[in-house]
């Protein structure tokens, strides 16, 4: 079976610095891959290249049988790749609903005629989207669903993460990239968030997820397979138990190597 996402020899250089160095990563339909590595090892860069924010220096990216190498973020987004960001990027003074709607804009009618003249068409789309957003947020936290029209900035950190994840999910992506969803949260909050994610994954068996995470506990609970980056190179790939035992991974994390 051919993978949903297949990156081969993906390389990203910033001047003299090679942030990604010939990385091969494949992700299958419905698979959850944990992506780990020390600070500055290239995890976020991998996401940024994959979503078109950075133009890779060389390599190949295939997604759902299409060539997505060095495509624009817009094309890649429409092809079905959605993500969250390491540092929250919500419109804090807009409502939760408006924030989540951004994730659905790709499939909505944004035409000026609909906005200005054909208002009934707009209203139909709006009602449908409100229903979807309510159903989606309710899975993560009924409190968000009940307060869909309050500013995103009035919610706690963990709820903002949930809102960001909902924004990524509302467009029905085939691949979801989560960049350190637990950053800045307590253990308890992280545990809750992972419960939500696991529950959600049950309902969407085809969704592929790549999760960047520093907390090994989270990686262990969630991932089918783990990949370790160090200095932009893939140094390990395999199940979590093997990761813990791997010598090279240990040196990468504890220092001492190079």
């Amino acid at each position: 079976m051919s993978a949903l996402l297949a990156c081969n020899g993906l390389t990203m250089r910033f001047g003299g610095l090679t942030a990604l160095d010939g990385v091969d990563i494949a992700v299958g339909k419905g698979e959850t891959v944990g992506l780990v590595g020390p600070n500055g090892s290239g995890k976020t860069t991998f996401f940024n290249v994959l979503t078109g924010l950075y133009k890779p220096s060389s390599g190949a990216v295939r997604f759902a049988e299409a060539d997505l190498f060095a495509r624009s973020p817009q094309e890649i987004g429409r092809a079905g790749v959605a993500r969250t960001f390491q540092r929250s990027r919500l419109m804090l003074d807009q409502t939760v609903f408006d924030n989540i709607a951004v994730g659905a804009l790709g499939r909505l009618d944004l035409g000026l005629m609909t906005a200005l003249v054909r208002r009934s068409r707009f209203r139909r789309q709006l009602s449908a989207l409100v229903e979807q957003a309510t159903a989606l947020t309710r899975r993560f936290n009924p409190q968000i669903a009940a307060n869909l029209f309050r500013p995103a900035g009035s919610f706690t950190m963990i709820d903002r993460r949930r809102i960001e994840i909902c924004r990524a999910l509302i467009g029905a992506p085939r691949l979801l990239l989560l960049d350190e969803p637990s950053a800045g949260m307590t253990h308890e909050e992280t545990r809750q968030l992972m419960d939500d994610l696991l529950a959600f994954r049950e309902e969407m068996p085809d969704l592929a997820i790549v999760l960047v995470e520093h907390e090994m506990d989270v990686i262990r609970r969630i991932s089918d397979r783990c990949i370790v980056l160090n200095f932009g190179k893939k140094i390990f790939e395999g199940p979590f138990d093997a990761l813990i035992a791997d010598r090279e991974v240990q040196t990468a994390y504890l220092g001492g190597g190079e």
Partner: protein
Amino acid sequence: MSMLQLAPTLDTANGRSVGLQRVVVALTVAVLFAGGGFLLHTEEQGQVIALLAAFVALFALGEKLPAGRRVAALCVAHPGTVNLTAAVMVLAIAAALREEHYTLLMMATVALFATAAAGLTLQMAFAGVPNFAGAAFFAVGSYVAAVLGTSGIPHLLVLVIAGLAAAVLGLLLLLPVLRTRGHYAALVTIAFGLLLRSFLEVNDVLGGPQGMKVPSFSLFGLSFSRVTEIGPYDVSFYLPYALAGCFLFALAFAVVRRLEFSFAGVALDAVRSDEVSASVFGLSIARWKATAFLMGNALIGVAGALYGMMNAFVNPNSANFGDSLIMLSILVLGGLGNLWGAVVASVVILVIPEKLQAIQEFRLVIFALLVIAILRFRPSGLMPRVTRDFSSFAKEG
């Protein structure tokens, strides 16, 4: 916030109290407009100062007292009542002051500058594209009216062409504006304004430094300058301009509001607040900035055309940088993204200096102080933009 907390109580309110709420809203708007109309009319210094004091006091009450905040929230919750009352009041004021040339001239000026501010709102408040050349696009509209006004083309069509011309001229700016950000994009528009003005000064076809005469607006064969009576009443020929100006503003208002309350409005907010996440979710930054920039300039151009026809002439000085700054001050003072704020700010910036002889000499100093004070104490303006809330729309549909 106060409005959002109020929303559930509004939902559960029964029909009678909703009716009462509408009455409160209508009365509030009527009082404000009546005050504004009186300010336009009176020449008496004591009255002007008393009116201003009353406005400041009302504003402070609306802000500080819970009851005042509740009334403000009601106005947000019943936009239909606000708009209807405003329309009725405009007609009433125009009827009452029908013979006063100068009052009506000011009324029309306020309406047309507010229309231009609506165009700038699309650009700056929605898409985040700076435009420091508002007066230049306004002047483009006036020049189109001057050139085409005598050509036999129906004047309504001339207004449309003026809008298109301003939008097309804006195209010249589009590439550099899209490629640059923030201060640099602002500089591009400043340069454009200066260039346009120099071009107009040396261009003999367009009258050079003297400018051109602009024919009076005529609607279905009726020239506004020849309107001296309606039925049994003597009226100023500025009356039709005041009404047409307010009508134009109402149109611009409807366009801006509908755009704001649509998915296109969400797209614009997304592009303005974070280009990175907007792109990742598939939005084309260039498309939305271009849309807002072109639409905004079109609105400014149409307003400028009617303004030129009202003033009967246009010269290169119409495109001066100072007037562009005045348009921007209207936007900032009123509150970026709130068109009622733009109306209030237009009155403050265009009318009050005319009314208060004492400050006329110090006009510029007072402007500067006012803008600094606003930026310091109320950075989101007199009437900040209200967070868009789709909930009422979703229920109806």
